[in-house]
């Protein structure tokens, strides 16, 4: 029997996902605007904030008033929502058919980025010694961000009808599917992004029903290679970032002015916000003429949220993600389609793992990895990828297929 989406559920589900995301996007926009409004002093040494003269072109005035970064964020939000809506048009099953091809295309793009290290290819700029973008004019996209979505799709597709992953050998293909892009992304280099693929893999497998001891074994093996990786695979500044977490309470002032600076400033910003914050656009970090927190509008925007809106604001943001998770899981539960279930879980993991890592980074519980806060941080490709993923989730929510077989993934416990 068909189960057409009942209006009540869809509305609830839709709101359940749209509201928190809207809230997060709004908070992000507000913070970006606040940090932008008081940018560091122009090289003239003027003591007044540069004001735009009334006679100037209207456009220039508007841009100046709103702020270029804010405008950019708005642009990506709007286009992201469009992307999300576009992802709702075809059924997710149809999209699923494109899982492998899209994975392949993204893989090729990642390979191109690596090839650019040896042979200079067009459209690939080098920023800060990293090749992460494909750029054309003012627009640039990061293939790695979309790889997250691609991997989610691919894993869901691969695992949907199998049970092979219940054996150790069966875990190999998903592992390889994940490791190959990981290695490519690592070469860019982009350590943080690379790490984000792992939770998607493991939690998808976990929820699908892979045996715990197998997963544990793989994780243990991975951990065993960590020390080697730490010493040989990481650059000094990357090592410093890990050390920063360990050394964050040291009394060594020079550490806090050197590698430990960003984390220190982040904690000060959060702490100074206290319980209710300093207010929108207020507070030392926003009123000073010198940028006190590096990357305050993307990686560390959570610290700025805490600074302006206090513990209350921080908890609200975390709750917003919690609501997304809740509804995502509801979708997964309510859907009987295996692909849909895994897709839903994959999307949730993708968004939430990054959020947790980012927030953890700002409070000193995780090393600084350059991961943005989904929907909040200023970003281009990140916003697009997340909205796309969101679109897929809502897509699954909208279309619950007929129940024609046993609910999937119901294996007997630990055979």
């Amino acid at each position, binding site marked *: 029997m068909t189960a057409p989406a009942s209006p009540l559920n869809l509305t609830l589900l839709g709101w359940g996902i749209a509201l928190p995301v809207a809230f997060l996007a709004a908070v992000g926009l507000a913070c970006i605007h606040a940090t932008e409004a008081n940018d560091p002093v122009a090289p003239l040494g003027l003591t007044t904030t540069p004001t735009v003269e009334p006679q100037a072109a209207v456009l220039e005035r508007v841009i100046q008033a709103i702020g270029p970064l804010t405008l950019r964020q708005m642009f990506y939000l709007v286009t992201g929502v469009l992307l999300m809506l576009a992802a709702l048009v075809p059924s997710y099953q149809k999209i699923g058919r494109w899982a492998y091809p899209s994975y392949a295309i993204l893989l090729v793009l990642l390979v191109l980025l690596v090839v650019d290290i040896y042979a200079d290819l067009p459209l690939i700029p080098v920023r800060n010694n990293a090749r992460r973008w494909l750029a054309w004019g003012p627009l640039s996209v990061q293939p790695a961000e979309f790889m997250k979505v691609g991997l989610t799709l691919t894993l869901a597709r691969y695992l949907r009808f199998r049970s092979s992953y219940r054996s150790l050998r069966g875990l190999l293909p998903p592992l390889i599917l994940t490791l190959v892009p990981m290695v490519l992304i690592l070469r860019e280099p982009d350590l943080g992004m690379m790490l984000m693929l792992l939770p998607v893999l493991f939690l998808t497998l*976990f929820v699908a029903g892979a045996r715990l001891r197998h997963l544990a074994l793989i994780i243990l093996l991975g951990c065993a290679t960590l020390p080697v990786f730490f010493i040989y695979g990481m650059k000094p500044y990357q090592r410093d970032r890990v050390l920063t977490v360990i050394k964050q309470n040291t009394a060594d002032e020079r550490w806090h002015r050197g590698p430990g600076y960003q984390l220190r400033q982040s904690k000060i910003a959060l702490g100074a916000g206290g319980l209710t914050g300093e207010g929108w656009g207020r507070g030392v970090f926003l009123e000073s003429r010198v940028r006190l927190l590096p990357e305050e509008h993307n990686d560390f925007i959570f610290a700025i949220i805490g600074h302006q809106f206090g513990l209350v604001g921080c908890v609200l943001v975390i709750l917003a993600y919690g609501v997304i998770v809740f509804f995502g899981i509801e979708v997964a539960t309510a859907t009987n389609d295996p692909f849909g279930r895994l897709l839903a879980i994959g999307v949730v993991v993708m968004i939430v793992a990054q959020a947790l890592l980012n927030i953890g980074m700002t409070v000193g519980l995780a090393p600084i990895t350059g991961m943005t806060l989904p929907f909040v941080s200023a970003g281009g490709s990140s916003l697009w990828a997340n909205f796309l993923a969101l679109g897929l989730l809502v897509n699954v929510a909208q279309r619950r297929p007929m129940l024609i077989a046993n609910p999937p993934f119901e294996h007997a416990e630990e055979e």
Partner: protein
Amino acid sequence: MFRRRLTWFWILLTALACALIARLVDIQALHAEEYRDLAARMLTQPVRYLRAPRGSILDRNGRVLVSHEPSFDISVHFAVLTGQSSEYLHALARELRRRGEYPESMSLDEIAGRLRLQIAATWQRLSELTGRPVSEFIERGEEIRQQVARIRMAVRRRTGIDQPVAEESDPLLAMHPLIEDVDHETALKVRLELEAYPWLSVAPGSRRVAHDADAAVHLLGRLGAVSRERQQEDPLAGDELRRLRAGESCGITGVERLAETTLRGTRGRIVEELDGTPVERSEPVAGRDVELTIDMELQEFVLAALRDAVEGTETTAGVPYASGASAVVLDVATREVLALVSYPAYSYERFDEDYDGLVRDARRTPLRFRAVSGLYPPGSTCKAITLVGALSEGETTPEERIHCTGHLLPELENQFRCWIYNDYRTTHDARQPEGQRGEDAIRNSCNIYFYKLGGRLGPERLCNWFSTFGLGRLQGTGLIEEAPGVVPTERWLRANQRRGFERSDPWNWSIGQGEVAATPLQIANVGATIASGHWAPVRLLRDAPPAPADQIVKLPPDALRVLRTGMWRVVNENGTGKAAKLKSDRYVLCGKTGSAQAVPTPVRYRYIFEWPDRQRETREAYLEEDAAASFGAERPRCIGRRTSARFPELEEGESIAHAWYMAYTQPASTPRGAAPQGPVYAISTVIEFGGSGGRVAGPVVKKIAEYLLEREQ
């Protein structure tokens, strides 16, 4: 199972979220105060310091020798200086248009273009006003760009973040000094014409100026950049407002270094909030002046006297034999240094420009502070010490007569001879057949007498007596240039010449030849010691505390009596020092001459270079860097050098000597041999390669003594 897994999934996420919230509570609730404090502290800008004027150096009569004068620095904004100015010019263009200096209709690009033209004109005009070529500005801009790039790299390495540093954009720090130490007139002109341009500013600075002080240029010393070592040694390192900071100057030689902590002032301090609101401000306090014991008029007189002596000595091919000279005048009672002169001197003002020439003047070495660094064999002036030593140790008596045999060793006619045998083939016995007593030998400066005394004393005791008279140690000026000289103890011989005492040592040393080496300051203090009866350290600064009693060394008065009698006779009874006999009938001079045989100084070397493939080449020059200059970018290693030319160039069998004169003045009424009372001055003079102490150095001492005593009236 799926549901169960989902539940676990849910639990995992909740647990992580709770961990984060717990941490946030910790930061934002439990430690909020702490963090708020830290945040408030970040509001203040880094501390800015105001430079304190440095103290002046004065002579004993209050005449200012070196002082700090205000000067001006012309600074240019970093962006313009280094040519990376588009961003800056656009921002400037926007501001100028806003202020109405350019019409609204002009685009930023157009205005920026105009500004560029103005900048080019600025360089041109600046060059005309200051007389410096534009290429110099470009070079300096490149220097500054590299400096800032280094700073930026260092910050990037430290924080992992690449962002512009304050030196590039901060309104204050981005102005870098292009031309420093500009005089008032030029600064005014530049200011009037060019200060309207926001990328240029004329800021006050200060510089060290000498006032007619070239006669004491070695003594005064110079300022130089603060180095890491000086910062570590700085006794004021714990005082934030007084310690040395990188980028500043401190005294590196002479009195500037000696009295550094006195001369250095206390810097001022400004603490402001980030928006410019002042929080704290303390004004700088100027450094204290330093008064030297030096009498500058005397110093100038002595320098002139030395110059006449040097330029008037026996010449070869129009070049005086003598390459330099030095004189020291001490007030015996207080051991204050009244004059500490080294010739040749050089110009304080033109030091930087002249430096390359000065350092390559191998013959005259004008940079050497001969008065305290010049090490010479003291020659016959040491005989004074030998006599006192022998008398005190009982190796001779005042009445004992010793014969001058022309040459010491009967079998060796050519060695250990008396000077009178050398020059005139006769002996002192010819005039005094009964032999000479101590005072006679001093008057005649008979070598044979002292060879014998030296032999009796032996090398060890002789060295002890040298030390008693202050040789081989610092005399207490505190100057870093001061050299302790050489007293060739057994330990010294082993360390420096890998030998022990030899038979001939005491003979050589007794007449001040061989390894013994002393500075003019030391010999002056020997003279003061003889006059007063005790050795004491000298004083260079007016407010230096008197020497503690345990540093004063008393000498046996009886032995000194004999010596003083002899020294009186040297000058006043037709002795070797008669050229210095004073005209006055109120004062007399007692002295001891010396003609210390010396080795000509190297003025050119042959440097040996070796390429990696073991090929060798030689180059001739004075300085190694000049020798290596002819090699291109690839430089071979220098493995050694040989002296290829010396000055003076001597013929076979010819020898030369430094002309020494050690003396002290005393009232004519002083009983023979007694320690003089009243104003007593000790004078030492050495003319390098001057020849005869009596003939060449004597007249100088006479001039100095007469000048001194004339002023007494």
